[in-house]
């Protein structure tokens, strides 16, 4: 019982913690923090990196440990690649915030694998047109690719679907 109480305290402390590269999203929105447990009096926070080589990773780890320290919790971080982080883990509110920020959210798995070409289209976050084209597989960060809207002509980032 106390153990559950304690991990809840840790979850609470991390609730508002944001991603260094996408500061309008919390790590919880992204689904990066997978688990918090107590093993022999030590707190273990398991995170699923969005990309193995994500340069923000060490900043994320530092933020988690220092945020927990503020509430008196000493924790160590474990990285987990199994199951691999998926863009489907991004919360509904996270997807909304992304759109508001001008980033087109990743397509969900059932839409990606559907045979229907229209539902596979990436929507422009500015004018919501589906007439868009990919400019580059890689955008400003590892997790995004670069698109262009053929209607409003604006370039935009699309969060990669993985």
């Amino acid at each position, binding site marked *: 019982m106390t153990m559950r109480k304690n991990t809840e305290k840790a979850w609470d402390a991390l609730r508002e913690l944001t991603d260094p590269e996408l500061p309008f999203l919390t790590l919880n929105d992204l689904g990066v923090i997978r688990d918090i447990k107590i093993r022999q009096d030590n707190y273990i926070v398991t995170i699923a990196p969005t990309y*193995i080589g994500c340069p923000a990773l060490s900043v994320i780890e530092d933020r988690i440990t220092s945020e927990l320290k503020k509430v008196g919790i000493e924790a160590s971080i474990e990285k987990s690649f199994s199951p691999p982080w998926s863009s489907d883990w991004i919360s509904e509110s996270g997807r909304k915030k992304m759109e508001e920020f001008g980033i087109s959210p990743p397509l969900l798995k059932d839409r990606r694998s559907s045979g229907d070409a229209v539902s596979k289209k990436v929507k422009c976050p500015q004018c919501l047109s589906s007439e868009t084209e990919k400019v580059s597989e890689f955008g400003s960060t590892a997790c995004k690719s670069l698109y262009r809207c053929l209607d409003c002509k604006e370039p935009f980032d699309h969060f990669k679907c993985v």
Partner: protein
Amino acid sequence: MQKRMSDIVFEGLLRIADDNLILGHRTSEWCGHAPTLEEDLALPNIALDLIGHAQALYALACEVKTEYKNEDALAFLRLEHEYKNLLLVEQENGHFGNTVLRLFYFSTFMKYFWSSVKEQCCFEKLKNFSEKAVLETSYHSQYASQWVVTLGDGTEDSNKKMSDAVLKLEPFLGELFNNDDFTKECFQKKFLPEPLSLFDKWKAEVKLVFTKANLDLPYITLKKRGGRKGEHSEAFGYLLTDLQYMQRTFPNSSW
């Protein structure tokens, strides 16, 4: 004499980590020099992925053998002959077409390598890692294959340059698929797949892309090798001076 399992795991991890580190470094040399802004974003992003893979693998290697302090010690403080990467990845970049062709060869190989690790590997942590790595290497292979087709099936000039790149990289492909005593041992211990076992799948995919790109398939024999034993080409010395500069000049510096 029978090697201990920890020695096998260490050496096996080192080979793959070194391949990724050195190709990552080569790829990073494009930063600020790529032909378009989009590619100037793409190549350093891929370099980050490759170096990230190397870092994670070095970290695992440090867990099994404690004589190296951390992944930086492995990446920056070894001598030339202690690096076990393929000759293929240390060669100079050449032009953009040459760079993306090498990336296509390597990432396609690694994609099948990691899927095989994912299917069968006795080292649980590497098996977990492979689930993520297979997705990222597939993405690299996909990106590079598009450029191989665009340039191969482009103008007469771009096709000629790509055909030259095929010939230039040809002598280094044999080493990529070379089974040696060590790879055999790794396979018997259910740790890593034997490189040659991935050849058919790799070749089928290269053939598919090369057909679209109007390129002739390379003729692969074991011509140049030595990287796995620490015998490197001249280009590697220059690469290492660049790569190791900060740690050699300011020992133990960190961010």
